[in-house]
């Protein structure tokens, strides 16, 4: 139901309802910013597994999901998490130990693939990647592709420009559309019907949402329809794309939300350090994820002092002069 009815449900229920074992999913945000972390932790708590994740550069969320064993297949452009982990720790280990199947693209290619999905076309063209191993090395084999109707038969295609050398291009790389089963993003404002306003960079969130069969929105502020209608120019996502709305303040913590809070570099470093050691990581998970029944309980463990530290300055939208580890 993606019409104009009230779609507000608890996050736990939204994850139960839309994210199943083996679902193909994507999450919003970029490295340390606006990842839907409350939803990520809830997926981990519900022990959902065998997920196929489409990622451009979804650092923190990506690596928590891999660390918890939720992901079996990954299409990805970038597995890094800012200063805390130039390469995501779990991602690297899982790749090195063949714990996940992965396939590499560039950030533009992944963004275009979501855009193609949002547009309802089978592919989009780019001039990126000629001569690179991104074109030649496939993470998913031909036979695996052919046996799975949810995975496109070809990683990419190269065709001659059917318009001669129009626009100076002799050849074009075509990247196939992605239409995830579910996309989850975290936004600053949403109303009960799912219309969203994202403040600051949108990354590829809008395309990911529009490409998806189901969409879960978590939001800092659940606002009235009237508030959002006062400036339709700031609403990038109209309600027709949205399946569920969950009101989760600090729902992107420990990643940043422009205008609201900064990333918690101390938490991110703690996560990265723990990730390097299986025992430490188990303790980390038991304390912060499994040890909390929901995001509010998780935030209680974090404590108000950390939250105060990262709270954004209203002028700049981030925490000015915050100590960043």
């Amino acid at each position, binding site marked *: 139901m993606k019409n104009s009815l009230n779609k507000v449900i608890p996050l736990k229920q939204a994850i139960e309802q839309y994210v199943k074992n083996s679902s193909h999913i994507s999450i919003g*945000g*970029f490295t*340390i*910013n*606006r990842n839907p972390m409350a939803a990520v932790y809830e997926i981990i708590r519900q022990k959902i597994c065998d997920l196929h994740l489409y990622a451009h*550069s979804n650092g923190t969320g990506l690596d928590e999901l891999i660390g918890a064993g939720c992901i079996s297949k990954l299409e990805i*452009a*970038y*597995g*890094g998490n*800012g*200063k805390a982990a130039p*390469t*995501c720790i779990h*991602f*690297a280990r899982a*790749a*090195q130990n*063949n714990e996940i199947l992965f396939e*590499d*693209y*560039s*950030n*533009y*290619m992944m*963004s*275009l693939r979501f*855009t193609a999905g949002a547009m309802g076309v089978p592919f989009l063209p*780019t*001039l*990126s*990647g*000629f*001569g*690179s*191993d991104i074109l030649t*090395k496939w*993470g998913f084999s031909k036979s695996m592709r052919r046996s799975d109707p949810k995975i496109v038969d070809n990683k990419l295609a*190269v065709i001659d420009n059917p318009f001669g050398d129009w626009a100076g*291009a002799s050849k*074009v790389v075509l990247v196939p559309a992605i239409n995830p089963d579910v996309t989850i993003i975290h936004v600053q404002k949403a109303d009960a019907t799912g219309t969203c306003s994202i403040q*600051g*960079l*949108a*990354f*590829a969130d*809008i*395309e990911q949402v529009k490409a998806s069969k189901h969409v879960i929105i978590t939001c800092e502020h659940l606002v009235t329809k009237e508030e959002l209608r006062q400036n339709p120019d700031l609403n990038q996502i109209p309600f027709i794309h949205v399946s569920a709305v969950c009101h989760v303040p600090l729902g992107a913590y420990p990643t*940043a939300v*422009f*205008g609201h809070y*900064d*990333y918690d*570099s101390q938490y991110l470093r703690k996560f990265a350090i723990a990730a390097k050691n299986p025992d430490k990581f188990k303790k980390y998970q038991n304390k912060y994820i499994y040890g909390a029944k929901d995001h509010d309980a998780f935030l209680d463990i974090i404590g108000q002092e950390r939250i105060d530290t990262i709270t*954004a300055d209203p002028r*700049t*939208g*981030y925490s*000015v002069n915050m100590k*960043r580890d």
Partner: protein
Amino acid sequence: MKTIQPYTPREIMTIMAAREIKNGDIVFSGTGISMLAAMAAKNINAPDSVIFFETGAIDSLLEELPFAVADPRIMYWAAANSRLTDAFATMQNPITGEKVIAILGAAQIDRYGNLNTTCIGDYHSPEIRFSGSGGGCDVASFVPRCIAFMQHEKRKFVKKLDYLTSPGQLEGNNSRQKAGLRPGGVSVVVTNLGVMRFDKDTGKMYLDKFYPSITPEKILKNTEFDMDISRATLADPPTKTELTILREECDPQRLILD
């Protein structure tokens, strides 16, 4: 007159990269030292250059140094906050793309300026897995000039990449064009030892500048492939003005310089 501290390797690298940036350039920047080079250029020699990020922010004020290209610090006071697709289109479109100079890092580079940021060992079962392309492959495909920042070590300046993530001159000569790419890719490599460029005809890396107290031979020793050093000259070291601006205006807290 105050005496000035001798420059560090990071400082000379930053200044050498900054000198590549011209007034009016649009600088595609990552974080860390590449951000610092962009800021140094803006403060020293290219005041009208514009910093922009693959995440979609352009000409951000940067009151504080961002630690990631998705840092909220880049969203403040930008000319426009857009999306990934917009940022990459700005580079793919030759009208704007021709003014872009990119700053990239890599785990490996070969003699043709091709970069590996993906893995060491077999792709499917790597010994070491890195972050992957990010926007690197796109940028190296689209824009006419890229600066590669590298530590100059034999295992990084390799005969053969384990994975070709971002195209440079591919196999040299006109193979880049033949493959379907516009002229571009890495055009200059700035390391802790010197500055390398690429021969216009062959596409092969040559030594352009070596730093004071570094010899061309030392650079060769740290490079797995053969490299022409016949054109090499001693680099002009960072000037007092350059160092002062870099230290006092670009990174007074030495967040990146240390």
